[in-house]
């Protein structure tokens, strides 16, 4: 069954029912990470380094242990020594030693806020008091935070063992570079030399936080049999289980993770910070332990998205068709290896068909927390540079920015930078829809200007498990292994209802713990509605086959004589022609026809397709203060098929707002001592509703043939284009290129006043 045309052939897919988890959440009854309480539970507190780089000479915990009510104190010495192996982290992978060291420093603190010890006590107050009494003797070491310092050829090396992977023979790395990665096709330099129009520029971005509202929290209970139970919110309980088991050197089957409701993740909750700490405190104290971060701890110790320094040069022929791209950039990765440079390279010009290009990215270590995924990791930064340069190119040639992009936009069948061919992608449709939108040609007011940008994210599929079972009264129970961040309960219920032919309200969706269903990869990478959706649809189809078999038994006929039509088994044999049993009628007889009706299904689909977005942004600049207001914003996106359009629109709007925040407001600010100065939402300014206009959305539906209902991932693309759309709009408003994010009022004021 493929996506039907016309679209109204669907009965429930594409409708906008009330979300199943809505009432619990708006009434405050839903249990999030910090809400969960276990019987006899202790409270944790973490001691964190005040230094960005320091050797830990000694830790004296004796005074902390003497505080009344303290039950356990741990340091890095309590963590198992690990062989450095690469383990699965959702879609990516990571070093066990790096993950463990980021959770708790062993011999060196690598950033301001790095955990060095932890306490469990009968009250939070006692734990905090004890934490203040832990005496750490530090030898302060030189630190590097800014990219220009970290990437310098003579930079202070923050770790002795840094090795630049990916260098050519005889090529020199940089002291803090962990990866150099180049993707090249043809001869970019020669093609650039022959280009008629050439633009170039240097672009800068600061690291930003994912800005989820719910802080990290975990409750762990190390049981008498040596097994571990964990309750936490995350983007994937199975990967929390796997990573926790790796760091604590446990068998995966001995760790059970119970998923709680999640208050935002955006990629930042695809890794672990607290679970092993709570587990070791529980092991030592013999009681369950909860450890929760304050907002300040979230900012100081959890993953930023990389900042970047980017050089871009684009060349076009006389008509404006791109003929060459030469790009080199550096992304910060915090104090550990890995990073987003690879994804940055692969999303640089992957939306344009260019015969000759050379794109090089570096991952660079610095004294910040280990980087973490953030919505389309690595793509917004490089897109800011490339799409801003595209707008410069349009200006230089004197051509409409969308017309310029249409000359080089990729289409189905074109080769991707990855080496595979594009399937049914919808970039051209998005560009045409944006050009036709009234916003694109609307008049601008005083001190206003408009910017445009498009962008892409590859999306993903991967392993997911889901089950569908029926209760005696015909209730449909769907169980999935993916936390509901962006509406997976609703979308799974819609797809199950569509497949089975039952009302949406008959379907109940549960998110299971790690011992109750097979593995599912994280809710992230724009994969869940696509991949877990296929698991649900296929499980529902298997249940239909069971229902047909049971109906055949009840009519004493062959299953070949049973068709499934609109939620009922319809008999086609001569004796019972036209008779039908509803799903509920068959379910009621399950005991007499073979037992419970259920099917669990594991899948690993990779027929996902990239997503594309085209954004139009109008800004108004206050020339007295330099403040920038976004006054109108439109998001156009190829969404494949919108299962629940309101959720899809929400993803488009949310991603755009986060991108606008990155462009205008957000940045980590470290002082000269390497300490974070804005570790809170008062000083780290994410956009709030009152800052934003109503963001218009246009869903371009070009179905994915690789999904039964045409789904493409939608969650990540919308954060990619806003940086360049906003940046270009502000540049035009002030009359100067604004190539350093965030474009804060002081920068705008300086640009307006000759700075």
């Amino acid at each position, binding site marked *: 069954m493929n996506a039907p045309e016309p679209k109204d052939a669907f009965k429930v897919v594409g409708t906008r029912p009330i979300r199943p988890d809505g009432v619990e959440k708006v009434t405050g009854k839903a249990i999030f990470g910090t809400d969960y309480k276990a019987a006899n539970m202790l409270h944790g507190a973490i001691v964190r380094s005040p230094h960005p780089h320091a050797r830990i000479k000694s830790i004296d915990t004796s005074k902390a242990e003497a505080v009344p009510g303290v039950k356990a104190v741990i340091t890095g010495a309590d963590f198992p020594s690990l062989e450095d192996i690469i383990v699965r982290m959702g*879609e*990516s992978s990571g070093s066990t030693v790096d993950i463990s060291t980021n959770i708790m420093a062993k011999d060196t603190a690598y950033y301001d806020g790095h955990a060095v010890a932890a306490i469990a006590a009968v009250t939070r107050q006692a734990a905090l008091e004890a934490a203040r009494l832990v005496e750490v003797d530090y030898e302060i070491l030189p630190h590097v935070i800014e990219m220009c310092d970290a990437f310098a050829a003579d930079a202070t090396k923050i770790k002795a063992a840094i090795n630049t992977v990916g260098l050519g023979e005889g090529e020199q790395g940089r002291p803090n570079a962990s990866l150099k990665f180049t993707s090249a096709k043809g001869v970019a330099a020669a093609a650039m030399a022959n280009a008629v129009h050439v633009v170039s520029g240097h672009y800068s971005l600061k690291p930003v936080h994912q800005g989820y509202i719910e802080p990290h929290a975990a409750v762990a209970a190390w049981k008498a049999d040596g097994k571990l139970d964990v309750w936490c919110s995350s983007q994937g309980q199975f990967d929390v289980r796997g990573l926790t088991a790796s760091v604590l050197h446990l068998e995966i089957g001995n760790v059970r993770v119970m998923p709680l409701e999640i208050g935002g993740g955006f990629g930042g909750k695809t890794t672990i910070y607290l679970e092993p700490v709570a587990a070791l405190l529980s092991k030592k104290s013999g009681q369950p332990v909860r450890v929760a971060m304050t907002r300040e701890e979230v900012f100081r110790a959890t993953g930023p998205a990389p900042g970047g320094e980017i050089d871009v040069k684009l060349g076009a022929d006389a008509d404006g068709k791109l003929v060459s791209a030469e790009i080199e950039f550096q992304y910060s990765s915090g104090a550990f290896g890995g990073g987003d440079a690879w994804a940055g390279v692969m999303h640089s010009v992957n939306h344009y068909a260019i015969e000759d290009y050379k794109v090089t990215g570096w991952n660079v270590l610095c004294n910040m927390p280990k980087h973490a995924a953030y919505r389309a990791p690595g793509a917004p930064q490089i897109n800011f540079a490339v799409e801003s340069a595209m707008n410069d190119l349009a200006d230089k040639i004197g051509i409409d920015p969308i017309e310029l992009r249409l000359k080089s936009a990729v289409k189905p069948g074109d080769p991707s930078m990855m080496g595979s061919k594009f399937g049914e992608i919808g970039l051209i449709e998005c560009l045409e829809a944006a050009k036709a939108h009234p916003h694109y040609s609307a008049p601008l007011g005083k001190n206003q200007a408009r910017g445009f940008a498009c962008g892409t994210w590859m999306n993903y599929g991967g392993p997911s498990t889901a089950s569908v079972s029926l209760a005696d009264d015909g209730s449909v129970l769907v169980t999935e292994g993916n936390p509901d961040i962006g509406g997976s309960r609703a979308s799974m219920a819609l797809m199950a209802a569509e497949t089975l032919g039952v009302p949406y309200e008959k379907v109940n969706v549960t998110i299971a713990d790690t011992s109750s269903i097979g593995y599912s990869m994280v809710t992230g990478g724009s994969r869940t509605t696509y991949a877990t959706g296929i698991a649900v649809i296929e499980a529902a189809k298997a249940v239909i086959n069971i229902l047909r078999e049971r109906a055949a038994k009840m009519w004493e006929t062959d299953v070949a004589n049973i068709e499934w039509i609109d939620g009922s088994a319809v008999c086609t044999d001569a004796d019972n022609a036209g008779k039908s049993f509803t799903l509920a009628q068959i379910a009621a007889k399950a005991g007499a026809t073979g037992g419970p009706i259920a099917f669990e299904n594991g899948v690993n689909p990779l027929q996902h397709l990239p997503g594309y977005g085209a954004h139009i942004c109008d800004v108004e600049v206050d020339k007295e203060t330099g403040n920038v207001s976004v006054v109108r914003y439109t998001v156009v996106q190829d969404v494949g098929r919108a299962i629940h359009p309101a959720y899809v629109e929400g993803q488009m709007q949310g991603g755009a707002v986060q991108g606008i925040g990155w462009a205008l407001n957000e940045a980590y600010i470290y002082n000269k001592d390497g300490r974070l100065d804005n570790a809170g939402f008062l000083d780290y300014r994410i956009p709030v509703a009152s800052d934003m206009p109503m963001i218009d959305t246009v869903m371009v539906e070009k179905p994915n043939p690789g999904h039964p209902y045409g789904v493409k*991932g939608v969650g990540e693309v919308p954060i990619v284009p806003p940086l360049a759309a906003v940046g270009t709009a502000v540049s035009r408003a002030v009359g100067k290129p604004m190539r350093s994010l965030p474009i804060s009022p002081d920068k705008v004021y300086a640009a307006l006043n000759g700075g």
Partner: protein
Amino acid sequence: MEADCLVRVIVMPPFDREFFGGTDRFEIAAKTLFGVVNQLNELGPGFADLADVRAAFAVDGEVQPDWSVPLGDAKEVVVMQKVAGG
């Protein structure tokens, strides 16, 4: 069992330099992607251990998640790094 299929294997960065000394093109005869991975591991020891976690494979331009599917008369296998989303 089907006969071996001779395919051109293109190893994308960073695997080319990380495991194969910068060489990114190979001719490999194999029945499935398992055979391709095993032979790549002989050329670049350690590749097989990380392939499941870090690599994705496109057979004649289509991403193939199932390594056991016969290569048949395929012409090209591209080895690429998985992209991690958020």
